[in-house]
C-alpha cells in the first residue's frame, strides 16, 4: 500500500512538463557539461581512431619501422631524459648500410632527413611557392612510403650516390607551381639552387587538415649539401609482411649496437620503433586531455547539481500546501520523498540526455565543417546519463527529505 513506481515517474514527468521553461533553465548546467563531455570525447576518440587507422601508417609506412636517434615520444619527456637523448650520436649513412646488411630480406631500407623539416621557397619561371617542406631521402624511402607516381620516375640510387640535383614533387606543388604544364624535365629553384624535376608523386590527400602533397623531395646527399646533416636523420625499414617486422627490428637493433660499438652493459643509443610508438605517443597526449575533461565536467555537473537542489528546495517551499494535501489523503513520508527524488533524478537524467543529443550534434557538426574526425562512443553516453542521474540523486535527496518531513497540518496551513 504505497505508490506504484509508474505513478511516481508519471508524476515527476508531469511536474517537469508543467514547468517546462524553469525545468530547462534548471538543466542548463547539466546540459552544458554533458554536451562538452560528449563532444570532446567524440572528437578525441575520432582523432584516436584516425591516428590509429590512417596517420600512423601514413607517417611511418605500413609493415615498417624506424631506427631513430630520438624516440617518437620525445615531446613528452622531461629535461633530464632529454639531455641523455641529446648525447646520442646522429644516425649516419653507414648505420643505414649496417641495417641494410643485417636485414637482407627487407623490401626497402632508407635514410631520410628528420624532424624538423626545413622549408624553402620553390620557383619555376615567374611562379613561386613559399615555404615548401624539403625532404632529403635515399631512393628506398619512396618504397617505404608506397609512393605512386603520376608522372616521371622516382629518385634512383644513382641520383643519391652521384648527388644529382634532381627532385620529385608532391601533387600540390605540381598543380600549383606548374599549373597544367607537365613538371617532368623542368628546371626549378629550391631555395636558390637549380633542380630538375624527374617525377610527380600521386595525390595522397590530407590528414587532419595537413596536406601530404605539398613537398619536394631530393637526394639526401644533395640535401646535406644545402642544409647540412640533420641531427635527426632516421632509418626506415619496410618488410614485405607484417609478421617479419618483429624479427627485423631485433636484427636492426643488433646491427646498430655493433655499428655503434656498444658493450653489453651499455644501453642503446638509438630507438627502434614502429607506428605503434606513434599511436602510443598520441594516446599519451590524449590521456592528458582525458584527465582534464573529468575535472571540467565535474565542476559543471556540481554547479548543475546545486542549481537543481536550489530549484527543488524552492519547489518544496512553493508546493508545501500540495505536499500537505497529498499527505492528508494518505501519502507517506516515503511517497513524498520518492516523488521529489524522482523529479530531480528525472530532471538531471533529462539534462544528461539532452546534453548527449546536443553533444552528438556538436561533434558531428565539427566533423562536418573541420578536418577533425568525431566518433561518439557508447561509454561517454552511458557516463553522461549516469552522471545526470547520479547528480539527481545526490542533490535531490536533501530537498526530497525536507519535503517528506513536513507535518501534514502545518503543510496544509501554508500559504
Amino acid at each position: 500500500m504505497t505508490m506504484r513506481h509508474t505513478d511516481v515517474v508519471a508524476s515527476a514527468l508531469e511536474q517537469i512538463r508543467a514547468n517546462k521553461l524553469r525545468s530547462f533553465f534548471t538543466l542548463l548546467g547539466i546540459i552544458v557539461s554533458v554536451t562538452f563531455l560528449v563532444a570532446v570525447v567524440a572528437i578525441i576518440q575520432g582523432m584516436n581512431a584516425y591516428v590509429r587507422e590512417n596517420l600512423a601508417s601514413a607517417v611511418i609506412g605500413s609493415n615498417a619501422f624506424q631506427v631513430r636517434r630520438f624516440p617518437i615520444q620525445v615531446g613528452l619527456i622531461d629535461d633530464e631524459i632529454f639531455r641523455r637523448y641529446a648525447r646520442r650520436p646522429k644516425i649516419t649513412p653507414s648505420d643505414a648500410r649496417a641495417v641494410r646488411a643485417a636485414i637482407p630480406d627487407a623490401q626497402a631500407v632508407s635514410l631520410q632527413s628528420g624532424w624538423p623539416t626545413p622549408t624553402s621557397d620553390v620557383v619555376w619561371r615567374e611562379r613561386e611557392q613559399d615555404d615548401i617542406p624539403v625532404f632529403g631521402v635515399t631512393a628506398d624511402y619512396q618504397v617505404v612510403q608506397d609512393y605512386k607516381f603520376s608522372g616521371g620516375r622516382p629518385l634512383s640510387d644513382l641520383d643519391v650516390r652521384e648527388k644529382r640535383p634532381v627532385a620529385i614533387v608532391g601533387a600540390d606543388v605540381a598543380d600549383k607551381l606548374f599549373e597544367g604544364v607537365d613538371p617532368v624535365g623542368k628546371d626549378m629553384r629550391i631555395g636558390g639552387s637549380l633542380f630538375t624535376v624527374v617525377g610527380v608523386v600521386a595525390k595522397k590527400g590530407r590528414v587532419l587538415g595537413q596536406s601530404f602533397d605539398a613537398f619536394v623531395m631530393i637526394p639526401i646527399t644533395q640535401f646535406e649539401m644545402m642544409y647540412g646533416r640533420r641531427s635527426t636523420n632516421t632509418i626506415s625499414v619496410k618488410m614485405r609482411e607484417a609478421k617479419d617486422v618483429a624479427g627485423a627490428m631485433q636484427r636492426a637493433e643488433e646491427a646498430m649496437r655493433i655499428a655503434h660499438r656498444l658493450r653489453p652493459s651499455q644501453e642503446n643509443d638509438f630507438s627502434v620503433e614502429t607506428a605503434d610508438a606513434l599511436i602510443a605517443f598520441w594516446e599519451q597526449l590524449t590521456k592528458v586531455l582525458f584527465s582534464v575533461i573529468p575535472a571540467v565536467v565535474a565542476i559543471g555537473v556540481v554547479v548543475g547539481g546545486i542549481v537543481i537542489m536550489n530549484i527543488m528546495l524552492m519547489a518544496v517551499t512553493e508546493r508545501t500546501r500540495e505536499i500537505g494535501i497529498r499527505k492528508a489523503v494518505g501519502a507517506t513520508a516515503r511517497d513524498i520523498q520518492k516523488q521529489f527524488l524522482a523529479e530531480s533524478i528525472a530532471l538531471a537524467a533529462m539534462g544528461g540526455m539532452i546534453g548527449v543529443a546536443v553533444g552528438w550534434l556538436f561533434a558531428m557538426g565539427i566533423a562536418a565543417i573541420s578536418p577533425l574526425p568525431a566518433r561518439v562512443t557508447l561509454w561517454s553516453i552511458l557516463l553522461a546519463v549516469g552522471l545526470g542521474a547520479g547528480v539527481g540523486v545526490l542533490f535531490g535527496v536533501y530537498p526530497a527529505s525536507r519535503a517528506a518531513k513536513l507535518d501534514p497540518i502545518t503543510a496544509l496551513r501554508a500559504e
Partner: protein
Amino acid sequence: MRNTDEYPISTTEEREAVVATAGAAPEEDWVIVTRGLKREYDMGGEVVRALRGVDLAIRRNEYVAIMGPSGSGKSTLMNLIGCLDTPNDGEYWLNGQLVSAMSDDQLARVRNKEIGFVFQTFNLLPRATALHNVELPLVYAGVPGEERRRRAEEALERVQLGARMLHKPNELSGGQRQRVAIARALVNRPSILLADEPTGNLDSTTSEEIMKVFEELADQGQTVIMVTHEPDIAAHARRVIVLRDGVIASDDKRSAFTQKVGL
C-alpha cells in the same frame, strides 16, 4: 426537514459507558472514541490549551455536527480525528484501534483508508483535473490506473459531477469544487467522512446543495462528522455537539438542539 428522532443515535448513557474505562478497546460499533484528548500549543512560553480533555464517542452511521464559538477547538479536534495532527495527551480509538499510539506511516495509512476529509478551502491540487484530484488517494493506495480511474469516475458521478471530470479546479464553481473534494474524500470508501466548515466558503443555495449530498451519504450509512458555525447547517445533522473552551459543552439529538436555538 425530516424528524431526526426517527434516526437511532447513541444515547448519553451508552456514550458515557464507552468513554468511562480508560485504556479499554471499544467495541467494533464505535467508530470514534476519545478519552481525555488534549492538544496544547506552545506559543513562546505561553501555552494555548486548544483542547482540554475531550471525551467523545461516535457510533457507526451517526451524522454529527460540531458547533461552538470561534477558537473553541473545533478544527483542532477535527484535525486530531482526521489524523492530520497528534494529541499531547489522551486516547483516540478509531475502529477499535489506538490511533494515538501509531507511527507516522500507520497514520498515513489511516488517513488514506479510513478517513475522508473535506476542508473549508477545498484543498484541491490546482493543476490537476477533477478526476486526477479524486484519484489521488487511490494513487497512494497503490491502486492500478484503470481501476483507479473507474472508481474516481464513480465517485464523481455520486456527487453529480460526471460531466466535469476533466475540468481543473479554477474552471469549476465553489460548490462544484467542494463536490470534487467530497468525491475525493469518498473514493477510498472511508469509515468516516470529516468536514471542517464545508460550506464556510459557499453561498446559502450552494450550501444547501452540499448539505443534500451529505444527507444522502448519511442515509446510505456513511458516518459523517461536520464542523459548522451556522445553526441551520448543523440542523441537518442528527446529533449536535457544542464545544466551548476546548471541552464538550453539550452533546444531544438534533431535536433538542433545534429547540434550544429556536429553529
